[in-house]
């Protein structure tokens, strides 16, 4: 059983400017936590603070209710998998995995047992005698993970482990890591800048920006109920469309917003904290803007650019009111540049952010696709 608690952690290199501040996070036993954010947001620094490679400037880090702030990496019971794998180049795979255990003074047959076990899980039995330079990128990645497994750590730390692999291998390894997490029931903290990795792997996603945690929650929570503008635009691809407007009507049952072109957009969010005349941003995801008029809020737009993905088209449009938006359209339908098409969205699909970028609570998050089938079917 291992629980990790981060209590008001801060990191500062010069004693004045904090690169990380006010980091509070609880990690449950067996939880897969993904730290995600743009480069420079401090996610890797936070991981290295967990590992003990980077010192902690303030706050407390507890593993299993014991404060570990000052403990060196080896005594924290963690194992880290590096982006560059960091295999010892002059040792074969077996020795790479055995090295840490040997240093810790484990018995020879115990070391052997653990290595055979880990190699079995990762299917690298046949590679044990090879040197790292004789392995492919994917194999090296497995060995690096194997080296972490044999230590039987309380906490696994992954630092962008997939970013050196090619696209196909990345998807495959991603699945294997997910499976590994289930099989080992391991507690994992995983850093990535790739939101797809974050969404697919994480039990809990922690979105970071500028040294602060923006929001922590399950993948669907982040997708459906982003806490602020940053999370809303960071999660989801293409980025959420944002339209500026002024509130014309606000109640606990909904908010109406006047956007450019004097169009009124009705949204189903909790408008208790907002007043008529406030400036807000209305957000709508590209997949919730539909071609046709199935939704209650309707727009017209001219196509500027089409990206064909096969199963879908991304249509880049300019609305009548001059606003640029992206729409995820049906891949089967032929759309040409210059076409004017009708768009619509249900009032429940909109997000509304106040002047400080904080989201108003959506009343009916989720199930947009089901809603569409209901209205069109």
């Amino acid at each position, binding site marked *: 059983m291992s629980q990790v608690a981060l209590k008001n952690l801060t990191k500062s290199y010069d004693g004045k400017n904090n690169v990380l501040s006010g980091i509070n996070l609880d990690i449950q036993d067996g939880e897969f936590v993904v730290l995600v954010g743009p480069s420079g947001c401090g996610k890797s620094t936070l991981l290295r603070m967990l*590992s*003990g*490679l980077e010192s902690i400037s303030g706050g407390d880090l507890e593993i299993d209710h014991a404060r570990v702030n000052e403990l*060196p*990496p*080896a*005594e924290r019971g*963690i*194992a*880290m998998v*590096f*982006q*560059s*794998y*960091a*295999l*010892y*180049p*002059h040792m074969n795979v077996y020795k790479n995995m055995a*090295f*840490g255990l040997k*240093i*810790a003074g484990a018995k020879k047959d115990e070391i052997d047992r653990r290595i055979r076990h880990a190699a079995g899980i990762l299917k690298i039995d046949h590679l044990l005698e090879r040197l790292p330079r004789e392995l492919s990128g994917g194999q090296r990645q497995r060995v690096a993970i194997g*080296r972490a497994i044999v*230590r039987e750590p309380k906490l696994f730390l992954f630092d962008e482990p997939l970013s050196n692999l090619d696209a196909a291998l990345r998807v495959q390894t991603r699945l294997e890591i997910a499976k590994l997490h289930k099989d080992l029931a391991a507690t994992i903290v995983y850093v990535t800048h790739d939101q797809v990795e974050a969404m697919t792997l994480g039990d809990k996603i922690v979105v970071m920006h500028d040294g602060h945690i923006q929001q922590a929650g399950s993948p669907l929570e982040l997708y459906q109920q982003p806490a602020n503008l940053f999370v809303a635009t960071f999660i989801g691809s293409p980025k959420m469309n944002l339209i500026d407007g002024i509130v014309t009507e606000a109640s606990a049952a909904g908010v109406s917003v006047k956007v450019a072109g004097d169009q009124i957009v009705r949204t189903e969010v909790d408008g208790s904290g907002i007043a008529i005349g406030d400036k807000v941003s209305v957000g709508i995801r590209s997949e919730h803007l539909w071609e046709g008029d199935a939704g209650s809020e309707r727009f017209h737009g001219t196509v500027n650019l089409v990206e064909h993905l096969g199963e879908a088209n991304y249509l880049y449009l300019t609305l009548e009111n001059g606003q640029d938006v992206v729409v995820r359209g049906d891949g089967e339908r032929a759309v040409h540049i210059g076409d004017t098409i009708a768009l619509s969205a249900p009032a429940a699909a909109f997000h509304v952010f106040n002047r400080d970028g904080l989201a108003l609570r959506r009343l009916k998050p989720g199930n947009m696709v089901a809603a569409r089938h209901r209205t069109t079917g």
Partner: protein
Amino acid sequence: MKHKVTRAAGTGFTHLVLGGYTLLALFPILLVIINSVKSKDGIFDSPLSLPTAETWSLVGFEKVLAKSPFIHFFGNSLTVTLVSLVLILVLGAMAAWALSEYKFRGSKLLAIYMAFGIMVPIRLGTVSILELVVKLELTNTLTALILVYVAQGLPLAIMILGEFIQQVPKELKEAARCDGVGEFKIFFQIILPLIRPAVATVAVFTMVPIWNDLWFPLILAPGEETQTVTLGVQQFIGQYVTDWNAVLASLSLAVLPVLVMYVFASRQLIRGITAGAVK
């Protein structure tokens, strides 16, 4: 087609230059070896010709090996060189690791101080060194020589090894620290094996000047007991009479250890030099 021809000509020219240089470098050594197995008359009559049945003679080697304490000198040289070499490599690598890995107060200054050692020839300090050695009562000991050579070799060793240690990826050390490996073990079991080519390079570069040095043995340890090969050879060179057979024979013998070292280290050496070059 024309391109191919120019390229072939280019390679040909390169090889010509390299070949010429090789010839130039090897010629004196060849001359020494050829003449070391000739009689005195043979040497003076036609120094450039190969030994014939008439001029063939091993009298030089007989004199050197049987009638002089040459073996003893050889032993002295070997002791001084090997002990200095080991000390330079171990201390140099450790210092290089410390300077590049740990940032402490004055580490930059210390690195500059070491770099200074490369720029200032140690012979400039001969008088002070001699005074120091006399005060320490180390005159006519091999220890004096070893100490001086270690001081002479360290700066360059630290500089070259430091460059290589910096190239070892940071993640390797961090992975080792996560594995619970102590700093000494990280150095000896991870860093040192990885910079082996550099160590071989430094070994050759520091060994040759020590082996060939005449200056410090002459000043610090000229006694019969502690003479090195280069100094020992001098006994055959007189003001009026020089025993060329013996001189050439002992010089031929003195080349051997360096040659052996090169053969063993050459592959590592080339890797070391090129790895440094393309950085």
